[in-house]
């Protein structure tokens, strides 16, 4: 407990930056769930693909070790775009291969879940065994090891008393919030966004109103995947390493965040991510970091016991969206 009080600000900042990444990944789960009522279990692998795309981009730039100023902003944008394209693209392919045929059969959601788990295993192994050794010129058996990618020297940008904010955490929080706002505007203000909301609300009526559902589903996967790709760029900035199963635990946490905030609800994903990140860091301050994940899941169970539809409730269907 003393640990938490004396180190309150560092834990809070860590919690916020962790929560911001959870929230961005959670968007993918929550959007797909809102439209398809499907837990896209392979979304964690979409995130993983994003981290490797970012890493590949860094390699293309010759692994810059200490970027600063405008160069950093430019580099971050390039990395985020690379991650977003790779993740968004693979999410669309995933939907096309693993989910669309099932939707055509009118298969149960359980079958789709199994298909997702299969796709998740496949993608993890594909990267560990084939893609990573090939792309980074490693011997085959090293593909499953973590790969580093350090490109920003960490330094404190704000320093008030015990409140210290380092540059990487600041960028992560600002970047994530920026993306969430952009997405919120997109879903609420554009025609495609209206189509997504309509489909989430009532697919049959949406079809009757001239919404092309296949296009909406593709767009949903693309946007959710792109958000995971941006999250991957921020994750690489903050944690500087990745491996083939990096998405597993993060994916579970992000899904937890989505459920915590109210699945299907975009703003809920932000709230859920931040709450989860904060509780995790405070929990690890009090009980020790080995209990971090237990705290996260206990929070989930407790919240759901008292608010069974999450903090903000399920509402991609509602106007909130």
């Amino acid at each position, binding site marked *: 407990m003393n640990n938490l009080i004396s180190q309150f600000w560092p834990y809070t900042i860590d919690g916020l930056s962790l929560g911001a990444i959870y929230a961005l990944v959670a968007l993918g789960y929550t959007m797909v*769930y*809102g*439209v*398809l*009522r*499907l*837990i896209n279990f392979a979304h964690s692998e979409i995130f993983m693909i994003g981290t490797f795309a970012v890493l590949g981009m860094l390699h293309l730039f010759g692994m810059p070790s200490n970027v600063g100023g405008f160069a950093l902003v430019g580099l971050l944008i390039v990395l985020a775009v690379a991650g977003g394209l790779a993740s968004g693209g693979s999410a669309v392919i995933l939907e096309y*291969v*693993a*989910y*669309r*045929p*099932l*939707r*055509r*059969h*009118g*298969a*149960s*959601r*359980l*079958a*789709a879940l*199994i*298909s997702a*788990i*299969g*796709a*998740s*295993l*496949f993608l*993890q*192994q*594909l990267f560990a*065994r084939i893609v990573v050794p090939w792309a980074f010129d490693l011997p*085959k058996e090293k593909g499953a090891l973590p790969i580093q990618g350090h490109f920003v020297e960490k330094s404190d940008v704000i320093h008030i008393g015990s409140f210290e904010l380092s540059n990487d955490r600041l960028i992560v929080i600002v970047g994530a919030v920026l993306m969430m706002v952009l997405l919120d505007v997109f879903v609420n203000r554009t025609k495609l966004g209206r189509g997504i909301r309509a*489909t*989430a609300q009532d*697919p049959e009526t*949406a*079809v009757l109103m001239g919404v092309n*559902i296949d296009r*909406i*589903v593709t767009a949903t996967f693309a946007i959710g995947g792109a958000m995971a790709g941006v999250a991957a760029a921020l994750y690489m900035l903050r944690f500087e390493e990745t491996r083939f199963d990096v998405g597993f635990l993060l994916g*579970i946490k992000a899904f*937890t965040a989505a*459920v915590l905030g109210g*699945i299907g609800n975009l703003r809920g994903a932000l709230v859920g991510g931040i709450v989860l990140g904060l509780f995790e860091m405070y929990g690890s301050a009090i009980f020790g970091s*080995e209990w971090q*994940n*237990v705290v*996260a*899941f*206990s929070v*989930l*169970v407790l919240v*759901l*016991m008292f608010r*069974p*539809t999450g903090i903000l409730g399920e509402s991609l269907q509602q106007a909130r969206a």
Partner: protein
Amino acid sequence: MNDSSSGNPLTRVRGAYSSATDSIRDRWSGAPSWVRWLVYAVLIVLALFLPADGIGSFMSPYTDWPTLLFFPIGGYILLGIGLNVVVGQAGLLDLGYVAFFAIGGYAMAVFGVKFGWSFWEILLVGIVLSALSGIILGAPTLRLRGDYLAIVTLGFGEIVRITANNTNYIGGPNGIGGIPHPPSFSEWTIPDNGLFDALGIGGVQPFKYGALDGKPYYYLMLLVIVLAIIFVKRLENSRVGRAWASIREDEDAAELMGVPTFKFKLAAFAIGAAIGGATGVVYASQAVSIIPTNFPFILSATILAAVVLGGSGNLPGVILGSFLVAWIPERIRGLQEYRVLVFGAVLVLLMVFRPEGLLPSRRRKAELAEGSGGMGSMGAEVAGPATVAAGEVSE
């Protein structure tokens, strides 16, 4: 959606497979009871001769076949039977089933090593303990529905594994070693002559649980599996089974009809957990040592895949699915590092071509034709051939 008129060869193969399984099922449900008992007896006798070397050399060229039959194959089948109670019968999505397996395994390890109890005592205690933990998990969470329940159970599975990892009393990340084997009943040896030798089980001591021979453990697992099947089958045809089916189909309607849904959901959780715990005890009694990483999330996912793949709700289907999911990765061990890759692709392909599972129950099949599958369908359905046809009629 058997669209055989389309002429697509793939669709035709699928249609042929469906009608073949249908006709077998029809014949089975029309068969007199003595035929059924005969088939059961034949199946059990066949299972007794399954660990023979001749079968093993084909089924498992890379690993010891009897040990493989014990775990993963036997273990997955038993876990599949248990999870099927929760997922297939009561329609509750459980993504943390491995937790009960772990609790059974640790019960065997702790009571066997620290208290010196014997296997049979621990089997009972392990079953009671895991059923209790099922109730403890279920009581606060079973008011949740669908995917919320799924994620909470997933969290529970992780909590159990991490707690085992962080608790020094049960060995932390090093787990517990030196778990005793079950006490041997007798040294009786199957006579090593003509007939038994030809069948490949001559010279086996089926009731002596040593460190080397996997066959006695397989027979032990087989016994537990048969008992579990009888138990679950009896339940399925009872009031409890009907209540589960009604909850699975429509929970609100069931509640309105006076089914105490919460009580029955809790019962499904406890019974599923008990079977998972039993598997854990039997597994640990052979494994000598267990560590927390024996119980990863992916095992829960794999068992769930086995249940759905085989045809959730239908016991023969579940057993077939579990067998395949356990056996395929071992059989293709020759592919070395690519086997999980292939396994993942196979899962996707099987779901794409046969989403109702290999041997679906009749009821589930009917549900699927209606488009709900008993688990609710996905939201945005694409207009398939059926809906297009309906549109053409109105034209």
